């Protein structure tokens, strides 16, 4: 198991639905081949089975390590395009307010467009339960010890969700500013959420995430008077890493800035 984040193969991903206690789908094979291996303690390699007569040769692969995930992500993307579904992948550290933001955003969008949600967390259906109350289709992906969603999990989840054409699909990734940046899910755009309690140097500390994102939402601006957070500096840091990054400031709690955010989504939905 990876010491830094706990990415591991045991405890493969599971799909769950709020209000359906027995409902339970194992994702048998994850993009990373998740459940076909057992880990040991990494003892020294054993070279003894090499035969003297054996011949070795080099084989050229020149293959992107994430090829399998990327191919599947493209299939998801094709599915979204065909159905005119606008898929957003929400990324952030744990607790920046992704679920709260969705709880506040969905009712605003729902009067014009259908919305569905895929929730990613290592454990629990807490976030899916919160979304379920809003009355929109939602499915929870429990990644087990995995620290990110991958394209295979989304592919499976799509088969279990009733998605409408011309709709918005929000995918809330596992709270983690590192790993989810590497895994394309097939989304149209990536939205990174950061909150004012996290420090304005976050973009510099996690450049890969901000490099990959299309939109950054600064959340919890209601707390700005109480914390030492320079929103302008944070934005400068983020834009230094990614010149194309769009920027919004909101408070999911008070509703400040949510009108601009709603407009942003509806513009994208209408462009399609």
């Amino acid at each position, binding site marked *: 198991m*990876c010491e830094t984040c706990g990415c591991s193969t045991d405890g493969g991903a599971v799909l769950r639905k709020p209000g359906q206690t027995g409902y339970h789908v194992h994702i048998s094979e994850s993009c990373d*081949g998740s459940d076909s291996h057992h*880990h040991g303690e990494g003892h020294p390699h054993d070279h003894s*089975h090499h035969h003297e007569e*054996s011949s070795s040769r080099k084989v050229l*692969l020149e293959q992107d390590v994430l*090829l399998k995930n990327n191919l599947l992500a493209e299939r998801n993307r094709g599915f979204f395009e065909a159905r005119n579904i606008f898929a957003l992948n929400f990324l952030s550290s744990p607790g920046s307010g992704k679920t709260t933001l969705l709880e506040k955003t969905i009712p605003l969008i729902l009067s014009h467009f259908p919305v569905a949600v895929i929730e990613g967390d290592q454990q629990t259906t807490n976030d899916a339960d919160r979304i379920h109350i809003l009355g929109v289709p939602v499915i929870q992906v429990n990644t087990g010890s995995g620290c990110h969603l991958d394209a295979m999990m989304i592919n499976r989840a799509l088969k279990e969700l009733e998605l409408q054409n011309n709709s918005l699909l929000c995918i809330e990734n596992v709270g983690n500013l590192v790993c989810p940046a590497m895994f394309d899910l097939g989304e149209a755009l990536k939205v990174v959420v950061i909150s004012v309690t996290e420090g304005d140097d976050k973009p510099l500390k996690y450049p890969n995430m901000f490099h990959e994102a299309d939109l950054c939402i600064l959340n919890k601006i209601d707390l700005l008077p109480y914390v030492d957070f320079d929103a302008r500096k944070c934005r400068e840091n983020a834009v230094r*890493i990614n010149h194309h990054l769009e920027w919004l400031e909101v408070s999911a709690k008070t509703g400040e800035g949510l009108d601009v955010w709603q407009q942003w989504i509806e513009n994208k939905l209408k462009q399609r």
Partner: protein
Amino acid sequence: MHEMSIALSIVEAIETKAREEGAESISGIDLVVGKLAGIQPDSLRFCFSAAAKGTLAESALLHIEEPEGVGKCMECCAKFPVSFYYAECPECRSLRIEIVSGEEFRIQTITIEEGEINNNV
């Protein structure tokens, strides 16, 4: 980080290729991991040995080439080494830098063992 799931996908990809080639085992892997790819080679090595256990790649030696980050200034077109995404152009101080190298993350080649040669005449 994500090195474990990455290690597993590498093992899966090379095992598939090795089987296609009729290999008995994989003795070497050449990876290209750019310095900006967001992957720690040491962590990857550690995870790889665990991920490869019981597979054709169990005894494989992992060779990792780490190309340096190279940025290109979008204002003056200068090219220079970078170690971060937020580099500054040493010529004109612009912050509008495009990364032209260092983000690579690929499996370049594998060395396969084809087993005993049985036509001893």
